[in-house]
C-alpha cells in the first residue's frame, strides 16, 4: 500500500473503510479528483429530513407562545414561563436535530465519496451556523443541505450567496433585526415582548467580511462594515416577528426595511438596487484576491498542515482566482500540491473526524445510537451543530490535543473495542487502513495485546489512528 493511498483515504477521505485503501491504491489522486468533480449520490438518510421552509412554518406558533409567556411576565414575574416555552421549543426541535445529526453521521460513516463529504464539512465549517443560538435550533441541519451541498461542485460565489440568504445564517447573525433608521413595522401589531428593531445590527456584515470572504486582514475598515450592514438591511426571513404574515417561508427581501441609497464599500460605489445591491457586493467579495488567499489558507490548513505551506496556499489561491472561484478547480489544485502528499499523519483528527473514522473502520459500530454518539461528541467538546462561535471549529492540533481531549478518546476507544473487538483482527485492521504508516511500536503493542479487545483499543487510541 503506497503512502499516497494512505493519505488519500485517511487525510482527504474520512478514514479507511473496509477495502477502501486497496480501492484507492491504483490511482489515489484520481480516486479523489473524481469525488470532487461530481455531485454526491442521493443519500437515502436525507430523504426524510425536512426543508428549512417546513421548520419555518412552525415558527409563528412558537413566537406567539413565547410572546404570551413574556407578556405574562411583565411586572416582575419569574422566569419559569419563559423557560418552559424555550424548553418546549427545544423539545420540539430536539428530536429533529438528533435525526439530522444521526443522518449526517450515518452518511459520513458509509459514504463511497468520503472526500466529497469532507469538503461539505469543510465548507459548512467555513460558513458556520450554530444551534448555540436557540432560535435556529430547527434550521442548522437544513442549512448544510440547502446552502452548502449543492455548491461544493459549483461556484464559491453561489455558495456565499446561498449562505448569506439562508434563514439559518440570517437569524444566526441577527440580520433579521437590522433595519434602516426610522423604519416602522406596518401591518404588524406592536408587541411589547418583541420590540421592533430600530436600526442597524452589524453582526452579519462584519462576519461575512471577516470570516466568509476577505479575512480579518483583508483590508476592510469599520466604515466598510457599517456600509455593508446598510446594504444588507432588508435581508430577512419570513415568518418572523414584525414581518407581515403570509408568503412562502424563507428568505425575504423587505424593501421597506432597506436603507435606500448608493453605498461606498472598499472604494467602490454601489447604486441603490434593492436586493441586487447586496448581491453585487457579495459577488465582488467572492472575486476579491483577499478572499482567494483566505480560503486557500484555510483549505491548506485543513488538508495539509496546521502551518500551511506558503507554496500550497499560493497555488490554491491562484486556481481560485483564475477559475473565478470554481470549487472543483480549487479542490483539484489542492490535490496538485506536492506538500499534501509528502508526510502522512500530519494532522490530528478532530473529535468528529475521530469518531467517524472509527465508524468507518468498524462497520459493526455503525449501529450505535445517534444519541450516544452525540453525547460522546459533546463530552469531547465537539457537539455537532453547536460550534462555539461564527468562526467555527478550530482546525489545528493544539485545540484538540489537551489532556482531557485525549482522555475522552481513550475512553471511547476502550468502550468501542469492548463491544466490537471480539470479531475483529486488530493488526489486520491497522495494516489495511494505515499500510506503511503503521509504526513498529504500535504494531508490536497490538501483537502483544492480552486480548483482541485490548488490541483494538490500542489501535484506536494509537498515535497513528488519532492522526490523518
Amino acid at each position, binding site marked *: 500500500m503506497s503512502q499516497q493511498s494512505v493519505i488519500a483515504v485517511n487525510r482527504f477521505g474520512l478514514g479507511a473503510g473496509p477495502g477502501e485503501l486497496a480501492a484507492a491504491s491504483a490511482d489515489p489522486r484520481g480516486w479523489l479528483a473524481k469525488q470532487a468533480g461530481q455531485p454526491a449520490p442521493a443519500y437515502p438518510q436525507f430523504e426524510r429530513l425536512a426543508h428549512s421552509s417546513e421548520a419555518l412554518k412552525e415558527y409563528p406558533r412558537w413566537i406567539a407562545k413565547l410572546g404570551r409567556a413574556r407578556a405574562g411576565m411583565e411586572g416582575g414575574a419569574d422566569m419559569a414561563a419563559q423557560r418552559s416555552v424555550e424548553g418546549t421549543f427545544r423539545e420540539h426541535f430536539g428530536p429533529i436535530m438528533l435525526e439530522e445529526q444521526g443522518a449526517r453521521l450515518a452518511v459520513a460513516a458509509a459514504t463511497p465519496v468520503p472526500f466529497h463529504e469532507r469538503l461539505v464539512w469543510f465548507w459548512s465549517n467555513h460558513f458556520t451556523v450554530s444551534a448555540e443560538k436557540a432560535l435556529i435550533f430547527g434550521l442548522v441541519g437544513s442549512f448544510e443541505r440547502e446552502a452548502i451541498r449543492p455548491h461544493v461542485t459549483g461556484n464559491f460565489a453561489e455558495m456565499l450567496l446561498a449562505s448569506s440568504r439562508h434563514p439559518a445564517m440570517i437569524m444566526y447573525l441577527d440580520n433579521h433585526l437590522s433595519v434602516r433608521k426610522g423604519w416602522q413595522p406596518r401591518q404588524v401589531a406592536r408587541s411589547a415582548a418583541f420590540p421592533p428593531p430600530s*436600526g442597524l445590527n452589524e453582526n452579519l456584515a462584519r462576519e461575512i467580511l471577516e470570516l466568509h470572504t476577505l479575512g480579518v486582514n483583508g483590508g476592510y475598515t469599520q466604515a466598510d462594515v457599517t456600509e455593508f450592514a446598510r446594504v444588507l438591511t432588508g435581508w430577512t426571513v419570513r415568518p418572523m416577528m414584525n414581518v407581515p404574515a403570509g408568503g412562502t417561508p424563507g428568505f425575504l427581501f423587505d424593501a421597506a426595511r432597506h436603507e435606500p441609497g448608493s453605498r461606498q464599500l472598499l472604494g467602490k460605489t454601489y447604486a441603490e438596487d434593492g436586493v441586487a445591491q447586496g448581491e453585487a457586493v457579495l459577488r465582488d467579495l467572492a472575486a476579491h484576491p483577499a478572499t482567494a488567499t483566505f480560503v486557500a489558507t484555510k483549505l491548506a490548513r485543513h488538508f495539509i498542515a496546521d502551518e500551511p505551506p506558503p507554496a500550497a496556499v499560493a497555488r490554491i489561491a491562484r486556481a481560485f482566482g483564475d477559475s473565478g472561484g470554481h470549487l472543483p478547480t480549487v479542490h483539484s489544485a489542492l490535490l496538485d500540491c506536492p506538500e499534501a502528499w509528502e508526510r502522512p499523519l500530519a494532522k490530528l483528527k478532530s473529535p468528529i473526524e475521530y469518531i467517524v473514522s472509527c465508524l468507518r473502520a468498524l462497520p459493526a459500530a455503525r449501529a450505535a445510537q445517534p444519541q450516544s454518539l452525540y453525547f*460522546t461528541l459533546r*463530552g469531547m467538546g465537539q457537539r455537532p451543530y453547536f460550534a462555539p462561535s461564527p*468562526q467555527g471549529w478550530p482546525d489545528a492540533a493544539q485545540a484538540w490535543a489537551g489532556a482531557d481531549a485525549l*482522555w475522552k478518546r481513550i475512553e471511547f476507544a476502550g468502550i468501542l473495542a469492548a463491544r466490537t473487538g471480539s470479531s475483529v483482527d486488530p493488526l489486520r485492521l491497522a495494516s489495511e487502513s494505515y499500510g506503511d504508516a503503521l509504526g513498529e511500536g504500535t504494531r508490536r*503493542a497490538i501483537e502483544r495485546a492480552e486480548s483482541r479487545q485490548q488490541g483494538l483499543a490500542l489501535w484506536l*487510541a494509537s*498515535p497513528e489512528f488519532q492522526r490523518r
Partner: protein
Amino acid sequence: MTTRRQALQLLGGIAAIGGLPRLTLAASSASERRLVFVFLRGGMDALSAVPAYGDPNYAAQRGILAVPAPGTPGGALDLDGRFGLNPYLVEMHKLYAARELAVLHAVASPYRERSHFDGQNLLENGTPKPFGRDTGWLNAALTARPNALAGPAAFALGQSIPLVLRGPAQVGSWSPSRLPVPDAALLDRLGELYRGDALLAQSFTTAREAQKMMEGRDGMGGGGQPVEALAKAAGEILGRREGPRVASIDFGGWDTHIGQLGEYGPLTRNLRLLDRSVATLKQSLGPAWQHTAVLMVSEFGRTVAPNGSNGTDHGTGGAAFVAGGAVRGGRVIADWPGLAANALYEGRDLRPTLDLRALFKAALAAQLGVTDSALEAEVFPDSRAVRPLQGLFA
C-alpha cells in the same frame, strides 16, 4: 435639599469607608497562592455589567439598555456612588461588600480592532499582536515562576486548553465524562505506546494525574450549568494542599447583538451564571479562597449606544472583575473617560484608559512571584511601558 444623586453618593461614600473593617490580610506563603483566569468570550457588555449610572451621560447614551440607578426598580447594586453592579450580580455584590471583589472599568488589551477572534488571540498570547506567537502568557508565567511545583502547575477546566495556557509548561485539563474509566492494563500499555509521541505523551501523563485527582467524583459534576460545574471542579483541584495553583475556565456566550433587555435576555442569563459560578468557586475552594485571586476578563467591550435590535455591537473599552481573598477589593478602579459623545473612542465605544496587562502583571507578580524582568521579557513582550497595577493584591 439633597438631590437623589447626592444622597446616593453620600450613601455610596458611607458604604465605602464605613463598612466593617476587614481583618488584616494574612500574607500567604508563596506556595499557597492561587490564580484563576476566567475568560468571558464574546465581548461582555461592560456598561450593563457595571453601569456607570453616576455619569451624567449614561442614561441618555444607553437609552433602552440603561440600568436604572440604585434604589429604583431593577436598579443597579451600588458600588461607590458612581458605578454599580448589574442587579443580577448579587453574590458578587456581597463579595464587593466584603472587600473580596474589585471592579476595573474602561479597560482593554492593546487590541483596537473589533474581531472577536483576533482580540481573543492577542489577549491570550500576551504580545501586542494577534497571532504574535502560538503560546499563551499564563503558560509563560508558569515557566517563569520561581520554585515551580512538580507535576502540572495549571489546569484548564474544559475539553480543550485555551491559548492563554498553551506552551512548554505542562498543563492538565479536565471536564466531566459519561463514559466508564478505561481499565488500568490498557492505560499502562498506552503509556508505553505514547512514549515516542511528545504531544500525546504529555497529555496522557497529565490526564492520568487528573483522573487520580478527581477519582470517585460524580461524573457529570453534579449537574447544573457546565460553567458552574467547571467552577466547582476548579475549586476542588486548586483547593488541595499540594497540587496545581493555576486554573482557567472558558465562559462563552457574551456576544450579545440582540435582545439584551430584561430577565430573559442572553446577557442576564450569562450574568446570573457568572454570579453563581463565582459563589460556587469560592465555596468549592474552601479555606484556599483566602489565598486566591480570580481574574474575569473579556476580549473587548461593546458599543455605548444600543444597536437597532436592543443589543450592542463590538466595541473597545470594557470591564474586568478581580475576586478572591487575596484581593484588596471593595473598590472600583477606573480612570473614567466619561460617556460624552466627544469622549468616546471612534465616536462609538468606551475609551479604554487602563491596559489589562497592568492587571495581569500585578496578578502574576503577587500570586505566582513572577519577577518584573520576566514579565517584560517572556510573559508580555514589548510591554515595558505598562506598569503593574499597585496595591490590588494582598
